[in-house]
Every structure is written in C-alpha cells, then in structure tokens.
C-alpha cells in the first residue's frame, strides 16, 4: 500500500519545542485520518531545527464507502423544517424517501458517500492539522493574515505514493521539494517518497532523526574525550537541546584557560552549560573537572573546525572572566555581612523580605534542631547565613547555584564545616532524584526552610492549584516527607487543616511508588491525630501486611459486613450505637465469644499502639477474625427482641470502635 510523506519546513524552530511539535503533528494527523476511516500500517514523526516530518506507511489509496441514513421531519411538518433538512443533506425533495414510523410518516435521506481518494482527503486534513498544531508560542508573519506558526513557514512537502498532495497553508502551496543544510547544501531537493527523502537529506547534510543526532553527539563526545583520557559529565537535558540546534552535528573539543581552573567547578560548568551549551569533561580517575570542553557545531569546515574552536574559546574566556570577576568580588565581603542586604530583597509581597524570612527560619531551625538532637547553635547559624548568597554576583548571574555558592563563601569565611554544608544542603532535595540531607544540622535548616515556605504561603492563601504551583510547594512538602522518612526522623509536623491534607496527598504520591496503598494512608490519616510521618508510615505498612494475610482479608470482610449492618440499622433507628454491651443480654455462645475477644483485643491493642508495636496490634486484630466469622455464622443480629437486637448492634459497634483504634477501616477499599 502507498506511503504518505509530509514535511513542514520553516525558519529555526526553538530546540525545546521540536520534539513536542512532532508528537502533536503525529497525534493530530492520526486522529483526523482515523475519523475519516483511514487505517494505516505505520507512522513516524521527526523533528529538527528547521523541519517537522511525518511519514505514514501503508495508507490505503481510497477511503471506504460510507452509507448514512438520516431521519428528517414528518411529512406534515412546516415547510421550513423540510427546507432546513434539504439544506443540511444537500438533497432535493424527490431524492428523499418516506418511511412510516410509530410517530407517523417521516422523510428519510439516504446519503451514500463514495470513498474519496486519499490525496483529496489528505489535502483537506493537512491545513487543518497545521492550524491546530499547539505551539507553546507562535507568531504571525503574513500581512493581514492571522495565521500562526512557530516561525515563518517556507515550504510544505506533501506526497502520496510519490505524487504531490495539493494543499495550501498560509498561502504556501504544497510541493515535492525541500532544502538541505543551510550552509552545507544548496538548491532545492526533489523528493517523492520517504526512502528518497531521508537519504537525500543525509546527502545534503541533514540528519533527520533527533534521536540519531543525539546518538552521534553522545558517541562523538565520548570518543573525543576518551582520546584525551577523559570522559563527559552526563547531561541529558543539554544533549536533547543541542540535538535540536544542529542538523549536522559536529563535535569539537576546546580548552579552558588555566587561569580559570581554580574557580569552583560548578561555576565553570554552569557558565558553560547555560550560556554556551558546552559539555564539561572530567578525569575518570579523580572525578575532577578537566580543562577541556566539548562543543557541538552545526558545521563542517575546510579547516576542520579550527576557527570555530578558536572563536568558542574566545567567547568562553569572556564568559569565564565575568564569572571569575564575580567570584573574586564576592569573597571580599563575608556572608555574615551580606545578611543585612536581604532586607532589600522581597521574598513575596505577602510574606515580606528575605531578611524576615531568614529570621523566621533561624528560629524554626533552632526549635527543630532541639527536637531532633542537632546542634542548635550551628543550625541557627546556618539558617542565618542560608540566604545570604542571594546577594552575591555569582548567584545573581546563575541563580541555580544558590546554596552551592553559599557553602563556598561560608568555607572562605571559615564558618564551621557543618554550617557551611547546611548552607548548601538546606535546599535539598531539589527534585525527586536528588538526595536528601543526612547531617542533622542540614536537616534542621532544610526542614525549617520548607516548613516556613509552606505555612507562609498557605496562610497567605497562595495554595497550589490543579494547574499551577508557582512556589513549588508540592516539592517542598515532598521534600519534608522524604527527609523525615529517609532519615527515620521522629518529628511532629505540627500542622493542621488544609496543610495537613496537603501533606497527606503528597505522602500518598510519595508512597505510591513504593507500592503503598493510598486508601490505607487515608485510613490512618483520617484518625486525625497523626502528624508523625515515620510512625504513620510504620502503621500503614503493618496494616498493609496484615490485610494481605488471610486473617486480615477476612477480618476486613467482617468489618464491612458489621459496618453495613450498623449503617442500615442506625439509619432505621435514627441513632448511633455506642452504648456498652450488656453481658447479661448475650445468649448465643458465638456472641459471648466475640464479646470476650473484643474485650481482650481492646485492652491489648491500645498499649501495643502506644509502644508503636504495630505488628502486635495487628496480631491482636488477627485474633478477632475467628470470633467475628463465627458471630456472623451463628447469630441473627436483627433479633426480634429489642434489647437483644440493640445489644448485638452495640457489640458490632464495639468491633468497629476497636478496629478504628488502628485505622478508619471504612476508608479501606476491597
């Protein structure tokens, strides 16, 4: 079956948008084709600096025929209704049939649409898809035309089975030509099919597939680094970005001048990555950053890239001179002396300046330090200095180095090592893959920093919404959760209301990955008095293990049965059963047994919970399974005699209350 090829050729597409645009193009095209009854064998989408490409394999040459019957107005309906129906169907009155229905005689239109040729359908779809493609940011460029594309569009290549699919978008008519590399190729290239296309582009110095470009870059960097006894420092984000900046990637190696090598590696690396998109290299033996970098050009030159490397080295020297200047200047003033300057930096309109924030964090860090056994003086000192690097030149230039620079400056000021580390690590974890701080002083400041942000923003009414979390509060809450759990820290969060619910939600997300059931977290959380996450998780985990056991599953079933009966009867009686079970009214042996078992369990569960021996608490619950099962087998709850019935209901309520000591079983699914 024939193939379809589409290429949308424009001026340079931002690297960050390319891959997403190709995916959107594929998604929209697939949707429209299937809506029109077209199935195909395969589809591939490609993106690069100047083009989006879609290749569809095995697309039928013709659409299937469609027969459609449409019911119209009754024959005695007003003329206007009939006119409307004729207009809608595009038929004349004598082409309509009359059909007798229970509601009377109605007009019927039979529309038979002959399947149309694929190129005709494609010609209609292409402009529609292009109009719908959701660029994150797009522009107008045609006078008097509201049409948008990411940058001016230059050509549309559209062929089906080797022939041009006629269509137009933004006044540009489709054709069968494209262009190669901007500098390494000239003139138009005529293309009929995907196979010619990919090969012709390669000849014209364009690697079509972004994944292939990334692989070329990654391999070349590795090889060139290896030849120098070095290895690249992995940077997936950068690799994806530079793959979108070159149609014909060429890796070249440049040298960093010695005078910059005593500047902290993080500064060099950040400057090279953010400003210049260079890869850093390191010595695999020592792990130390090397005085070489890898750059990815989009050009092959006669001189083997000599001028390009020289030019890039020159640019880098200017960049690093700037960075080094800041680094040297910054160290002329101590971090301590910079704290005052935080008065001039607004943290948030409703939450005051960074200085005020530091004052709060300092106090909080001291309190937390006392509770978790960290050095209070050091924690307060670290908190005091934690934000001071925001006033430095390096952090002004590279905000992502906040904390990292603070540590360097703290070390330079001869601050205590734990203090310096905490200045850096209090931002941690900065993402799901980042490690949490493990030193107590760092932990105290990290918790204080995040708790202050959370309580502050929640109090100011700046809660995250479904679509937005501008202050990264989810990350902050998750950070706190991870710090506490991974360090097994016993520390009451001392939060309530919305914020506690927010934590519960974050906790569910965090534990979901570990296979912990979210309903069990709810069940424990909804007891309402648990803000010690370590204890909470231990309880949830014990509960989950228990429910997996035979006893647990059966007890849960028994609980549900009891709860359902109670619910129905409580509704009927319009009251809640909470009274004492009267032993004297118990007659059946199985209800006596359950009463005894409950008495024993209730007495044992409480101290077990208090000792945080959750396994023991679960064991006590397990002991209830047999008497519960026996009770339901041998006893009719709704006895005729009122007193007996109420007593039995109170017995079930006692079961419910006993289990609710451990968790709210009504929240447990299954």
């Amino acid at each position: 079956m024939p193939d379809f090829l589409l290429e949308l050729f424009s001026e340079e597409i931002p690297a960050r948008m390319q891959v997403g645009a190709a995916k959107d193009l594929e998604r929209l095209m697939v949707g429209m084709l299937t809506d029109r009854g077209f199935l195909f064998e395969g589809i591939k989408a490609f993106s690069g600096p100047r083009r989006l490409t879609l290749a569809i394999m095995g697309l039928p040459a013709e659409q299937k025929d469609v027969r459609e019957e449409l019911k119209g107005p009754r024959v005695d309906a007003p003329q206007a209704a009939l006119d409307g129906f004729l207009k809608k169907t595009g038929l004349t009155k004598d082409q309509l049939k009359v059909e007798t229905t229970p509601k009377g005689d109605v007009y019927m239109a039979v529309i038979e649409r002959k399947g149309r040729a694929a190129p005709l359908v494609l010609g209609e779809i292409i402009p529609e898809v292009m109009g719908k493609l959701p660029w994150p940011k797009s522009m107008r460029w045609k006078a008097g035309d509201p049409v948008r594309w990411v940058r001016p569009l230059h050509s549309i290549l559209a062929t089906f089975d080797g022939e041009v699919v006629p269509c137009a978008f933004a006044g540009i008519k489709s054709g069968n030509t494209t262009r190669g590399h901007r500098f390494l190729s000239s003139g138009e290239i005529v293309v009929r099919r995907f196979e010619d296309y990919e090969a012709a582009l390669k000849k014209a110095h364009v690697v079509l597939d972004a994944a292939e470009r990334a692989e070329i870059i990654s391999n070349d960097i590795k090889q060139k680094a290896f030849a120098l006894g070095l290895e690249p420092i992995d940077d997936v984000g950068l690799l994806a970005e530079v793959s979108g900046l070159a149609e014909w990637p060429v890796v070249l190696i440049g040298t960093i001048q010695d005078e910059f090598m005593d500047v902290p590696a993080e500064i060099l690396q950040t400057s090279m990555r953010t400003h210049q998109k260079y890869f850093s290299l390191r010595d695999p033996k020592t792990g130390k950053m090397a005085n070489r970098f890898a750059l990815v050009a989009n050009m092959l030159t006669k001189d083997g890239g000599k001028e390009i490397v020289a030019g890039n080295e020159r640019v880098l020297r200017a960049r690093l001179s700037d960075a080094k200047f800041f680094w040297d200047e910054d160290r002329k003033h101590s971090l301590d002396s910079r704290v005052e300057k935080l008065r001039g930096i607004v943290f948030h309109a409703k939450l005051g300046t960074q200085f005020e924030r530091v004052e709060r964090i300092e106090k909080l860090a001291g309190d937390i330090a006392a509770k978790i056994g960290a050095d209070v003086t050091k924690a307060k000192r670290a908190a005091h200095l934690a934000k001071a690097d925001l006033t430095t030149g390096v952090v002004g230039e590279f905000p992502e180095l906040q904390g990292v620079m603070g540590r360097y400056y703290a070390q330079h000021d001869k601050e205590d090592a734990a203090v310096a580390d905490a200045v850096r690590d209090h931002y941690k974890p900065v993402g799901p893959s980042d490690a949490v701080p493990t030193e107590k002083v760092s932990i105290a400041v990290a918790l204080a920093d995040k708790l202050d942000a959370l309580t502050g923003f929640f109090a100011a009414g700046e809660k995250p919404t479904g679509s937005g979390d501008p202050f990264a509060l989810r990350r902050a809450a998750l950070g706190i959760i991870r710090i506490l759990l991974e360090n097994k820290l016993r520390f009451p969060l001392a939060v309530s209301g919305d914020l506690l619910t927010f934590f519960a939600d974050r906790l569910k997300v965090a534990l979901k990955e570990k296979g912990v059931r979210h309903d069990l977290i709810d069940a424990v959380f909804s007891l309402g008095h648990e803000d010690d996450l370590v204890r909470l998780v231990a309880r949830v985990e014990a509960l989950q293990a228990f429910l997996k056991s035979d006893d647990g599953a059966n007890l849960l079933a028994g609980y549900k049965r009891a709860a359902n009966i109670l619910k129905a009867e409580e509704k009927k009686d319009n009251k809640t059963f909470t009274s004492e079970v009267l032993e004297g009214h118990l007659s059946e042996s199985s209800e006596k047994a359950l009463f005894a078992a409950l008495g024993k369990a209730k007495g044992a569960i409480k101290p077990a919970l208090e000792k945080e021996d959750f396994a023991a608490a679960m064991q006590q619950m397990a002991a209830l399974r047999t008497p519960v099962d026996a009770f339901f087998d041998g006893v009719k709850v709704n006895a005729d005699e009122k007193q007996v019935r109420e007593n039995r209901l109170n017995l079930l309520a006692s079961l419910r209350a006993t289990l609710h000591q451990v968790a709210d079983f009504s929240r447990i699914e299954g």
Partner: protein
Amino acid sequence: MAKARTFQDLILTLQSYWAQHGCLILQPYDDQMGAGTFHPATTLRALGPRPWNAAFVQPSRRPSDGRYGENPNRLQHYYQYQVILKPAPANVQELYLGSIRAIGLDPDLHDIRFVEDDWESPTLGAAGLGWEVWCDGMEITQFTYFQQVGGIECDPVCAEITYGLERLAMYVQNVEFVYDLAFNEQFRYGEVFHQNEQEFSAYNFERADTEILFQHFKDAEKQCRELLTGKKLALPAYDQCIKASHAFNLLDARGVISVTERAAYIGRVRALAQACCEAWLETPMGAYTPRYPSKEVG
C-alpha cells in the same frame, strides 16, 4: 569579502550593504536611549500599514552596565546597528547572512546558528519572536519579528535586526578588550571612549542627582501627557517618553528604586509609550489611510 578591519569600516560596510538592499540610511536619534528600538524609526514606524525599510546606528546608554572602563566588554554607552524591515521580506534571514558575509565573516568557516531568543521590552510594551544569532558561540545579532509595540499588534509584521557593533567588531578584529578595538587606522576605541566610560560610570552610579532625576521623570511624564491631550503631537510626546525612560534607567543605576517601585516605574513608562503609539496611529504617517500627499497615492 575583505574583513572590516576597523570599527568604522564595520559601520560603513553595514551602511552600504543595507543601502544597497533598499534601506533608508537614517542617523541616530538625538535623545538618550537604552536601545535602538527606542528610535521612533523603529518604535513608531513598526506600527501602521505603511512599508518601512530603514537602517541606522544608535548610540545606546545602559547606565547600570557602567564598569568604569575596567570590564573587557561591558559598556554603559555603546553602539547598536539597527535594521528595520516592514513587512519582513521572505528572505530576510538570507539578507541578514549577506550582511555577515559583507563584513568578512565567512559562514563556510564559522558556525552560524539561530538560537531561540524571544524579545520583550516591558517599557515599550513591545514583544516579538526571534533568535539571537550565534557565530562560534558568540551572540552577534538579535533578530526579532515584532508582534506587538506599545501594546498594539503589528500588521504587517516587521523584522528587526540589531547588531551589537562593539561585540561584532571584537569578533571580527580578534580583540578581547573592547578598548583595544581599532576605531580606524589611527585611533583605538579606548582613545575615543575610555574616559567617557570612566566619567559616566561615576556619574551614573555616584554623582547623578537623584532629586533632579526624579523631577525630570515627573516633568517628562507630565509633558508627554499634555502633548497627548487636545491636538495630539505624537512625535514630541514620544520624545518625552524616551526622556522619562532614560531618567528611570539612571535612577535605577543609582540604586534608589526598590524592587516594587521598579515595576511601577516601568509600568508608567509603558503607559506613556502606549499612549504615544496610539496617537501615532492617528497621524498621517501612522494612519491606515495614507493622508500624506505622495506620488503613489496621486
């Protein structure tokens, strides 16, 4: 394709290149401004339906970039070369690359790239999409398709090409310290501008009288507003907007404007720019219906 060996060669080459490609060669605007975009030949002419092709050098002042003549490439006064093409021709990237060849940068030996960089001027209420053009990792040009100026949609869309002349010259001349640039065969850039940088850095950061500047700002704002009431005078009003903007930049460099105030000041300048742009669209040269007598209209 001889290299533009001196700073003034570079300017002359660009002037003749863009003149050959149909641009009016205008002169710098005689007001202090932060960038060539403030030149009325860009801000105002970018609006309205009339075609417009112009190129000019614009001295640009960024008071807070002063480094007392000690930084290798940062200047509080420097030159921009600006080209404005309306409507943007379909081959505008090719035209631009032609100018790069003309000044002696051979794209076959270098790595020329168009890297995403959307431009926005909060003070002018202007925004556009485009790139910074890289030559071997060095940003040599800002390339923008204007979408909006003074809060008004541009139609037709124009292309704005802005070369940072000193930076470009440093690249062409292979010089690392801006003051070492050959201005012509006889003078170095430092001989022309080093003292200027020293003195103006001191003025910008230490000596500029902030009370006077605040008053300048207020006066300019007031005069601008007045010129836009009654019989509107869009061009003189826009002059006042430029003056207000520069007064703000100086105050900012003096460090007397707090973060929150900063946004408010920018908003005030933007409001002036917007009002000027709206007034401009009511004038003969800005209006949709050409009222200025010219041959085409007959």
